[in-house]
């Protein structure tokens, strides 16, 4: 495969795309898992399907549509949640299915033969284009930059939002910013694992890292490393047996998570036994 990477442009694209996906899902994934925003991220991801449909209908790049829809979903969910009055899981559920429904509607309105949407739903890393790649690289750069830039503020906000707001940190701004970053992350991940499978890549590397590293920074770094391993191995398997990359990556991530979980709890039990004796 290493030789093939140098030969084929599409494999080079896929390789770079998996690295980008691993970086964002590592960093944002840790935040999502710690802040318990997994379902919120699922909602943002699924809403973006409406944008994909709109892109096909209006004839622009579907990934741009997905980007716009997921940003709107992030801001919409955030606004309604902040205003209060409704439970956020209800709002998330509504955005989730409304986005999917709009996508189906837009595609149905399209004249002619309907396009194959499975690469957006389940991801196909081998079909990443140059344009996709440029978008992914710039979004990854923005996400990493924003997190590094305000790292200490993020840490205070994530640990204790109330205290952060009391000492005058702009927590409302950080909350919206975080939701926008999640929307960007979703867009980066759509081409790799698809809308439906995004949640797995956001949670599996972060949760695996969570068992092994105790500081926030270390957790993010481990999570990026795990993500890279999951994606590259998934890409490699999907290249050889010719199955949608998203499915392979997700299956491999989930198995790895459970494996680490099993070994980790075994070791822990062994340790506490030894202490007792």
């Amino acid at each position: 495969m290493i030789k093939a990477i140098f030969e084929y442009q599409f494999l080079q694209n896929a390789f770079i795309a998996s690295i980008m996906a691993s970086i964002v899902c590592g960093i944002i994934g840790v935040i999502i898992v710690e802040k318990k925003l997994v379902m919120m991220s699922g909602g943002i991801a699924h809403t973006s399907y409406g944008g994909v449909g709109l892109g096909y209908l209006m004839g622009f790049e579907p990934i741009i549509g997905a980007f716009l829809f997921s940003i709107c979903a992030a801001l919409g969910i955030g606004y309604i949640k902040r205003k209060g009055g409704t439970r956020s899981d209800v709002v998330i559920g509504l955005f989730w299915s409304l986005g999917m429904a709009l996508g189906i509607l837009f595609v149905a309105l399209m004249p002619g033969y309907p396009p194959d949407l499975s690469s957006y739903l389940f991801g196909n890393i081998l079909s990443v284009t140059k344009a996709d790649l440029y978008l992914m690289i710039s979004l990854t750069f923005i996400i990493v930059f924003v997190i590094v830039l305000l790292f200490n503020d993020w840490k205070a906000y994530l640990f204790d939002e109330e205290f952060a707001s009391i000492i005058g940190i702009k927590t409302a701004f950080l909350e919206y910013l975080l939701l926008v970053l999640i929307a960007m992350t979703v867009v980066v991940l759509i081409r790799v694992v698809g809308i439906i499978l995004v949640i797995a890549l956001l949670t599996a590397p972060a949760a695996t890292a969570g068992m092994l590293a105790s500081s926030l920074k270390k957790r993010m770094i481990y999570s990026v490393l795990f993500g890279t391993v999951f994606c590259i191995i998934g890409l490699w398997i999907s290249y050889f047996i010719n199955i949608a990359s998203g499915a392979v990556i997700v299956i491999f991530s989930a198995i790895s998570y459970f494996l680490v979980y099993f070994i980790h709890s075994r070791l822990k039990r062994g340790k506490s036994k030894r202490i007792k004796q």
Partner: protein
Amino acid sequence: MRETAVHIDNLLVCYGQVPAIEGVSLDVADGEYLGIIGPNGGGKSTLLKAILGLIPATHGTVQVYGNSPEKNRSLVGYVPQFAVLDKQFPISMLEVVLTGRLKQGLSPFFNYTKEDKKVVYDLLEKVGIESLVNRQISELSGGEFQKMLIARALAVKPRLLLLDEPTASVDVASRDQIYGLLAELNKDMTIILVTHDMLAISSQIHRLACLNGYLVYHGEPELTEKVVNNLYGCPVDLIAHGLPHRVLKDHEGGKPN
């Protein structure tokens, strides 16, 4: 005359349509040590949050050192209820206390200075947990966690310290240490303490406020039976919690309500 630290006038705070506290008027002088007691749901935490500017007043005014709470944020330290925080969060004790040193607004590329770290080490020494500085918070006991939260509040260098049940789920030794520490701190700052703990009320505080939706009592830290009846509707329950006799007066109507 001493400066007024907190001035509350005819305060009404509603959650939706439901008033949590109403008609509360209260002044806290600079250097005072005020204890607030009351039943669960009596609005104690709501009052603290109104002083912190976290919940807007539906009606009435709240002032902290002569200004709105939002404007005087840097003067106030806050120790939240221990239960609301995620103890599994991947952060060390040092990092938690350092957050008290963060600047207002947002600070791009912010790094804590040597002085920030020194302040934090001194505070951890003051609250007696400096040996645990690099521990993860998931490895701390209830008492250690609570002392860490006090150190974080002090890192802001406040003139007014607000504490929301700092001795809930804390062992007896730590509880005594915390009260000792608060008495010590009271020499330099105003303290408002929300508690269920009657022992603290009796031995330390200067003034007492009893809150049950409205201000049942505000004055010297001596409870009459009438006040307790108004407050909890059940004085027996209170005594069972270990209320010292010298707090609860034997005869009724000894103090004007």
